[in-house]
């Protein structure tokens, strides 16, 4: 399992351009369930791309278990940190669902029973077990997105990063993603997810990091981040607390980020 640390991270895409990251420092422990929220363009995607080496910092550094990520090869990083892109079409390429999901673990050296069980786990978790021989492009957009998730899930990386995993998912799809996050962290792996869906964030994660203009402006539990005291900071980056949080505040129930916490407080 891997301890992630970012220190004074700055990223400038083009010389003289804006600081997409402007001094980000944070630590993420093994098995943590972290949501990363903020406006489009606040630096969320740029930050996670530093964690798997797709981007190198302009200043500062990322360490995995104390080792500077810049000393690790892309292959070494890929064993530790899996990243699922927002757009599955940038990721999916094989001719069948099975080949797509096998590709990652095969490249990490998995064979035989290990490979079979990694693939079976990923396909079951994403509800695609009946689609092994289907061409990925015959799946609808939402299931193709679950396929992209399955293909990274099968690699069994200690850190799993999801960029907008619930986009385009129906209620059952969102529930699947929530269950996957729980199962993966239950095995001691870390999950970091970027999301604009505040209800999914409050329901699923134990820690929420809020970014604005390349910096972290809030970092705490959903109860802390959606508490009345944080609303001004949230709204400064055009985020709204969940309905449950607003209702709980009006009823004087304290911080109730989820439906379940409102109901518990009223019982």
């Amino acid at each position, binding site marked *: 399992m891997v301890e992630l640390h970012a220190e004074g991270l700055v990223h400038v895409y083009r010389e003289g351009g804006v600081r997409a990251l402007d001094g980000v420092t944070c630590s993420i422990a093994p098995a943590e369930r972290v949501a990363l929220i*903020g406006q*489009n363009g606040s630096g969320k995607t740029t930050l996670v791309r530093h964690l798997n080496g797709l981007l190198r910092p302009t200043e500062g550094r990322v360490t995995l278990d104390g080792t500077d990520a810049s000393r690790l090869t892309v292959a070494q990083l890929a064993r530790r940190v899996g990243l699922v892109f927002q757009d599955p079409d940038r990721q999916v390429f094989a001719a069948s669902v099975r080949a797509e999901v096998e590709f990652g673990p095969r490249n990490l050296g998995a064979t035989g029973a290990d490979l079979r069980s990694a693939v079976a786990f990923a396909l079951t978790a994403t509800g695609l077990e009946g689609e092994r021989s289907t061409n990925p492009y015959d799946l609808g957009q939402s299931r193709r997105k679950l396929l992209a998730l399955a293909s990274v899930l099968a690699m069994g990386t200690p850190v799993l990063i999801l960029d907008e995993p619930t986009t385009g*998912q129906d*209620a059952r799809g969102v529930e699947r993603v929530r269950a996957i996050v729980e199962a993966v962290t239950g095995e001691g792996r870390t999950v970091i997810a970027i999301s*604009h869906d505040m209800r999914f964030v409050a329901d699923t994660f134990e820690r929420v990091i809020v970014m604005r203009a390349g910096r972290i402006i809030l970092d705490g539990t959903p109860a802390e981040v959606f508490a009345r005291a944080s609303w001004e900071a949230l709204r400064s980056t055009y985020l709204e607390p969940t309905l449950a949080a607003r209702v709980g505040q009006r*009823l004087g129930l304290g911080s109730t980020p989820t*439906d379940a916490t409102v109901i518990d407080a009223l019982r």
Partner: protein
Amino acid sequence: MTLTLSGVGYRYAGADRPSLLDIDLELPDGAVVGLAGPSEAGKTTLCLVASGLAPRTVGGRIRGSITLDGENVDAWPMHRLSQQIGIGFQNPATQLSQVSATVFEEVAFGPMNLAVPRDEVVASTWEALATMGIDDLAERDPLRLSGGQQQLVAMAGLLAMRPAHLVLDEPTAQLDPAGTTLVGEAIARLASDGTSILIAEQKTDLLATVASRVVVLDEGRIALSGPTDEVLNDPRLVELGVAEPAPVRLARAARAAGIDPARLEAAHG
């Protein structure tokens, strides 16, 4: 102008069963109709059919009739139909022309191709950029924007064409809450100017604010249809796999726990 689908069915080329069956749908001037349903229920297909892209460019076989103010459009070629009906795709990367060097050119691309006079193109382009809150991106390369920003550019490109009918397939999928609000406001403004809009969305909270009617698809058929409030409060929504709007879900959780939802409703807003 009213866009009407009567008894429409559709089957993709090579598919072993139809993707749409018995669809009746009416889009009068200024109406906003929400389209909900679980994944692969046929929402995207209905968007393609209502905009005329299926079967014209997608292929496949269509049944039933599509009319504009009573005139059957079956024989209309795509270029004629696309002056009346605009479509916004789920993935903005598919929408962008790929040939424009700047966001301004990208947004102007549609009206330029409709042979709108130059001054009008410039005016409607700036207006569309302002409506989507992206005037500051006018000089940027559209292919080097974030997914969310591209979605706003694609939406502005549609607005600039000022179509009588607009079909939007999950226009807010990649947007943050602020961008989603902008799209909601743009839809409301277009509708008040008389544009009719069919909008497929998983975000039922957005449909609750913009749609006057909601149609829920399941396995290619209309499962629920009616005024927005009625459909979004229908208990069958959950069984159909559609996410309930936040207030509906909270009220259901309250009832299940033996708490009167009225206690919560007073605290909404």
